[in-house]
């Protein structure tokens, strides 16, 4: 019923817009000019008649002209960053309006958990990213819009492939388990943000300390990101906007690898050193020339485009925003085989059914397809194959078939062939939305109920054609004898029902209370099923359907998982004279993931604030316009562990083969002890912060100090092998993060030049305090070329630090070798340090050789506008993190290598760095050592954008009210000492950070775009 009314309302607005505004206005014409306090004209000010849709926007001279309904009309002047003014028309026809900068940014209303709050009265640590900032940086994923925008939030790429996940860490990795923050979109907790179009976002609040996040209790341990999507504003003229861009992406860096000639020289040398005969075809290396540059073959110029149409507006009783978008991006590796395509639709409606009752609906639908190549491993990714295949082999043989290398091991297949025969698509359809009703029962007492739905239907489709079967000589890894198709469907159905009751009141004078209680019920039902088929009737990806598979031998599978949460929460906010602030929160969470005895957890928090600028001694200060001291303490939980850990399970799949016709006979057995005591991880965090506004808030400074300790961390209990099953998860570990965050922002307007510069820095120290009773270190990050683990998580060290041998130069001659303790060594081999001085080099000589977590992350952004031109620049970087270069397959003799290998040891005194070339590597020069650890610090010019807003005069009073054209460059320049393809390497799993296994690098892209408002 409401819906129909709304629809009708929409139609009206469209008509209004189409016919034009003047038709409806009947009263006098008004005109005038809007100036700032310095007397300089303000263009772009919205001038509208209150309660109507009529109005204008000031031109470059600050002038406006339109017809109002009557002399009783009120005109509203509003402009971002300026105090909104209302003027009654009466007899006046010509207006001269002076707008002043908004008294303080601190009056801004920002979104916090279950409500909004004036920035000045928040006593927790909350950072906000606004739509202005998001729109400045055209980005595919929401996490990219978050990168560098808030102090203490580390966003890193897991892959540069279009649509790939990013890692987000709020104040460091809080646990050895899942450290992702909780994302809440319009009140609904969601997993992942791949479905969300950044342009739909009005604001993002990052709740960093325990007090801000406490209201999300058991799921808030790693911070909370609250995302609010756009709706129109009251009495906002309908605004139809188009935003779009086209762009082109390229690899920004190529590695210098050996040419065919150089490859042959080193191959000969390596064979001679090992006592092998050289290859006859490499007798004359010069004749081989440059050979194939596989990187040129791999990296392509890839297009991208984005289009979005939105309509926003509002009347006295309803506000709305509707939008649709289309995004399409190819990858710089794989082109269309790494394509990401996303379509989104959104309708957000708010209706005031009466002065007491507000009903709102926000619904977003997303469809995306992501074609993906294998990524981020050293075995079978296009990148690692490209970097390792020899330059002598061509891409194709003369007969047109894909070539394969006779030199490198068969793991290293022709990457171009592999890409051509990879067909893997993840398709997702997601509907996220909810209905909210808000009723003000008596003045200040508001009841809100929210029904949310999050539906995701995804499918994973794969097809491997039959290929390479033209000859029996084609090696197994370069061919596929039987076509196969794979399909797996997933379905997530999540419901949320939430009720809050809030009372906002004052006792006596100046004692302002806001009390809220509420509860939430959430339910998740996940099902999946999949099946495969082989031997397709038509060997073509366009016909890759199970109905055409002639053999379904490999059967099908399926699974279901259910989870539920039930929570109660309450909050008291108290302010005295806007000067003394207190906020106390308690949340009680029940989760189905834990056994009956440990199902409930209570998460309290308390924060205090003191607005010093409200005190007499600062009130008159010309320097400080604002100053607030904040302190908070609280606890949050992390329940992101696999469900059912408290039950003793038995596991299928431990099968054996019997029969004259070999047949799988199923076997079932427990493989793990259960732990009925399992409970949440708890984070206890203390935060002290200071917010300062200087020079009428032109300069804003925020500093936060925190100490965040995760306890009861889930660790796999290592038990004696004699039990015959694995140990259970137990709550035993502790991890501590301490840090400082600083953010600064300066805005100034000088004449027609507006500029701002801002930045933030965060220092974080991560340390493992305990790993359970045994404190057994956890090894992770296993790598093939050295047959061992790179990362080690141990008490007293940061999570997943690099662990290996220390090198000590090279043996220069036989005397040195004989004096040494490495019996396999020869001159030119690496000398490893015998750290425990026991006369042998073994595992006991390994030590910490690097820390992949940055000591510091920072960003700087600046913007300036002048006479319609605007320029924005955004720089971001890390300092003090190490990377492990793991993409060269040193376990193979014949792989291609960086040109730095040309500086190898060739005789006494030639070098002390690059070891000799030798087949078989008898000295194990390629063992895990500091040889492969490099400084991963970088500074990256993430984005530069130059825009021009076409003066309104050009369009007269026509349909177009604003037109901005821009060009933008992403990843334009990167300063780093790291010698791999890109230093911005995230995590592969929770305990693998900063290992470069042939990482899909982010691209450098150039975009040209348009923002058009009707």
């Amino acid at each position: 019923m409401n819906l129909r009314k709304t629809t009708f309302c929409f139609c009206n607005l469209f008509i209004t817009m189409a016919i034009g505004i003047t038709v409806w206005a009947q009263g006098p014409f008004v005109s005038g000019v809007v100036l700032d306090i310095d007397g300089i004209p303000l263009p772009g000010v919205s001038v509208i008649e209150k309660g109507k849709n009529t109005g204008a926007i000031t031109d470059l001279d600050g002038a406006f002209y339109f017809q109002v309904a009557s002399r009783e009309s009120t005109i509203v002047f509003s402009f971002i960053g300026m105090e909104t003014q209302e003027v009654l028309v009466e007899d006046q026809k010509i207006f001269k309006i002076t707008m002043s900068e908004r008294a303080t940014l601190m009056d801004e209303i920002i979104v916090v958990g279950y409500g909004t709050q004036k920035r000045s009265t928040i006593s927790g640590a909350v950072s906000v990213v606004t739509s202005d900032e998001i729109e400045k940086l055209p980005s595919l994923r929401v996490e990219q819009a978050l990168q560098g925008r808030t102090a203490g939030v580390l966003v890193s790429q897991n892959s540069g492939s279009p649509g790939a996940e990013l890692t987000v860490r709020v104040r460091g990795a809080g646990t050895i388990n899942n450290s992702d923050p909780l994302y809440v979109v319009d009140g609904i907790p969601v997993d992942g943000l791949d479905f969300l179009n950044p342009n739909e976002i009005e604001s993002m609040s990052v709740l960093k300390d325990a007090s801000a996040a406490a209201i999300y209790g058991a799921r808030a341990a790693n911070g909370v990101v609250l995302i609010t999507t756009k709706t129109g504003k009251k009495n906002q003229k309908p605004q139809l906007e188009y935003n779009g861009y086209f762009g082109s992406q390229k690899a920004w860096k190529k590695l210098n690898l050996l040419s065919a000639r150089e490859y042959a020289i080193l191959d000969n040398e390596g064979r001679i050193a090992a006592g092998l005969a050289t290859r006859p075809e490499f007798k004359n290396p010069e004749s081989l020339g440059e050979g194939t540059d596989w990187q040129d073959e791999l990296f392509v110029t890839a297009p991208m485009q984005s289009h979005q149409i939105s309509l926003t507006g509002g009347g006295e009783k309803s506000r709305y925003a509707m939008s649709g978008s289309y995004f399409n991006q190819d990858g710089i590796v794989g082109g269309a085989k790494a394509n990401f395509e996303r379509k989104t639709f959104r309708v957000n409606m708010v209706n005031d059914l009466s002065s007491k009752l507000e009903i709102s609906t926000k619904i977003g639908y997303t469809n995306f397809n992501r074609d993906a190549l294998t990524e981020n491993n050293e075995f079978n990714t296009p990148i690692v194959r490209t970097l390792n295949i020899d330059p002598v082999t061509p891409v194709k043989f003369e007969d047109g078939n894909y070539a394969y290398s006779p030199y490198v091991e068969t793991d290293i297949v022709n990457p171009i062939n592999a890409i051509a025969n990879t067909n893997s698509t993840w398709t997702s359809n997601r509907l996220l939305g909810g209905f909210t009703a808000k009723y003000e029962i008596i003045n200040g007492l508001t009841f809100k109920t929210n029904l949310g739905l999050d539906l995701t239907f995804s499918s994973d489709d794969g097809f491997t054609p039959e290929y390479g079967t033209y000859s029996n000589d084609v090696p197994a890894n370069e061919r596929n004898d039987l076509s196969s198709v794979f399909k797996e469907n997933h379905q997530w159905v999540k419901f949320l029902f939430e009720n809050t009751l809030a009372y906002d009141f004052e006792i006596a004078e100046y004692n302002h209370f806001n009390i809220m209680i509420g509860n939430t019920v959430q339910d998740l039902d996940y099902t999946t099923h999949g099946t495969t088929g082989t031997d397709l009737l038509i060997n073509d990806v366009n016909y890759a359907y199970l109905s055409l598979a002639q053999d379904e031998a490999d059967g099908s599978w399926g699974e279901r998982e259910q989870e539920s949460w039930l929570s109660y929460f309450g909050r008291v906010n108290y302010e005295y004279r806007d000067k003394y602030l207190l906020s106390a929160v308690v949340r009680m969470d029940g989760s189905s993931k834990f056994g009956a005895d440990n199902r409930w957890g209570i998460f309290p928090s308390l924060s205090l604030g003191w607005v010093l600028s409200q005190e007499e001694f600062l009130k008159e200060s010309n320097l400080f316009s604002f100053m607030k001291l904040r302190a908070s303490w609280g606890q949050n939980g992390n329940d992101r562990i696999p469900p059912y850990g408290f039950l003793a399970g038995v596991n299928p799949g431990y099968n054996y083969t019997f029969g004259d016709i070999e047949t799988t006979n199923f076997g079932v057995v427990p493989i793990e002890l259960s732990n009925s005591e399992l409970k949440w991880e708890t984070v206890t965090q203390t935060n002290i912060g200071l917010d300062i506004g200087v020079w009428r808030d032109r300069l804003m400074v925020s500093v936060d100090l925190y100490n965040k300790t995760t306890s009861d961390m889930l660790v796999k209990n290592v038990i004696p092998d004699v039990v015959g099953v694995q140990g259970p998860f137990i709550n035993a570990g502790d991890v501590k993060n301490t840090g400082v965050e600083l953010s600064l922002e300066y805005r100034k307007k000088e004449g027609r030049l507006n500029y701002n510069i801002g930045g933030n820095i965060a220092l974080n120290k991560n340390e493992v305090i305990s790993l359970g009773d045994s404190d057994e270190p956890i090894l992770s990050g296993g790598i093939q070329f050295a047959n061992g683990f790179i990362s080690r998580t141990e008490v007293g060290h940061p999570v997943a630090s690099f662990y290996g041998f220390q090198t000590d130069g090279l043996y220069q001659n036989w005397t040195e070798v004989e004096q040494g303790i490495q019996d396999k060594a020869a001159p030119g081999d690496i000398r490893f340090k015998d750290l425990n001085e026991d006369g042998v080099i073994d595992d006991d000589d390994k030590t910490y050789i690097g820390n992949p977590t940055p000591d510091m992350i920072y960003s700087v952004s600046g913007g300036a506008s002048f006479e319609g031109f605007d320029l924005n620049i955004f720089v971001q970087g890390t300092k003090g993190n190490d990377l492990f270069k793991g993409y060269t397959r040193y376990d193979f003799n014949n792989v291609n290598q960086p040109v730095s290998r040309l500086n190898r040891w060739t005789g006494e005194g030639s070098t002390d760095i690059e070891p000799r070339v030798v087949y078989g590597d008898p000295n194990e020069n390629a063992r895990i050592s500091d040889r492969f650890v490099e400084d991963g610090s970088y500074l990256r010019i993430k984005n530069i954008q130059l825009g021009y807003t076409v003066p309104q005069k050009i369009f007269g009073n026509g349909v177009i009210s604003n037109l901005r054209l821009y060009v933008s460059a992403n990843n334009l320049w990167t300063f780093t000492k790291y010698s791999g393809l890109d230093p911005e390497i995230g995590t592969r799993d929770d305990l693998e950070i900063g290992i470069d296994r042939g990482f899909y690098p982010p691209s450098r892209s150039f975009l040209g775009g348009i923002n058009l408002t009707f």
Partner: protein
Amino acid sequence: MNKVKFLLLPLILIGIISCGDDFLDKRPVSSITEDSFYLTQEDALLAINAAYDVLQWELNPEWFDNGAGHFRWFWGDVMSDDSRKGGSGDNDFPALGELEKFEGGADNEMLSAEWEADYVGIYRANKVLEEVPDIEMDEFLKRRILAEARFIRAWFYFQLVNYFGDVPLITKTLSLSESYEVTRTPAEQVWDQIETDLKEAASNLPSKSEYSLSEIGRVTSGAANALLLKTFVFRQKWSDAFSTGELVIGSGEYFLESDYLGMFSLNGENGGGSVFEIQYQANSLGDWDFQRDGSFSNVFQRARGEFGGYGFNIPTQDFVDEFEEGDPRLPATVFSEGDQMGDRGIFTKDATGYPHDFYARKFFSNQTETASDGDPNVNGQTNDRAIRYADVLLLTAEAAFHIGNEGVAKNYVNQVRERARGGNNAVLANITASGNGLLEAIYHERRVELGLEGHRFLDLIRTQRAADELQGEGFNPSVHYLFPIPQAQIALSGGNLTQNPGY
């Protein structure tokens, strides 16, 4: 009035949901918990199959998975003087290389992989022995399943006691707290348990011919007796060994197949000479984890380069020289340069990219036999011929020799030689020696007949010949008759487990 109503509604809504603690009771619906398992005959079969599963665990490298299992050929061949590790170089499974040179310390991951897999197998057998007796089911089948479990338990203790000596003897499933308390049991007691289990198994298991075709691969009374024979031989209980060997030989269940080479082809699996074979098949879809049903051995032992293998288990010249002139078993066991490697091409050093002169043949499979889908590397389907009839004959011959029955000893050895001869009387003349010469002949026969099948190392250990034969490999007789107990396990036990001397 209206306002009261609106105040009540939220209170009801906020309060109402407190009723629902049931709402938080979510149990798995697509997986099973222990309280709903071990109830039916079907469950009993599933439980025993899971115990068999551990038999086929090969090498799951520690950095890849949790690291448990072994290649029998690694312990039997690479550790001995018959073959070298191979691979792409010293960096390729360095832990294996260290052990081979008797440089492996207590932190060697191959040792912990062996230890862990053995105890997982023992746990699964114990679980069957604990849970299945209470299941209401066909009594005959129940007896068989319990006997199968006993065989499997004995099998894993046989590995443990040989490699580590005194090991914890666990005959029931342990709780977490018990697990920290266990101590090492004297090896003799472990051996006694092995004997008890195998006797029990042998008397309750069906013979090979009593199983239906679809059950081929399950342990038989013959397999239990053969392992018992081996146990007696290892304990040098010669007359028990002889009588047990005679039981197997006299059962009429086994014979020497005429085609020696053919025994190691796919068609030769579970043939007339097969007493106990660990089963693999080629449809594992390429899973690299424990749950695969395919073997890694094929790809591991195949030459690198054009042959696409990993080039492990490289036969030594010493091993090749052991074969008598014209012994047809040599080309059936070892590929030499110039040999046709099935349909994968001719063996040249150039084609392999490595300077090795020989490659192991018994795990060779043709390209055409590769599973059509899944990762071919882990989809090997060659069964591991763990106990062959020829092995039984030679062990019984050895027992006969030791109880003074040289005639029977010669007869059994010569049966094996006759089959190997393949009708060509110009080679492999009958053994006529006696005394020590006969014993040497039996040892020789074992080395060539069972070459690269994973027997040599323990043969050298049990006969104390390792000191001589493996001297050049770094074998120190005062230390290396046993391997070190994995250090991590000693640490976890809080010192309840002790280390072997010399480590």
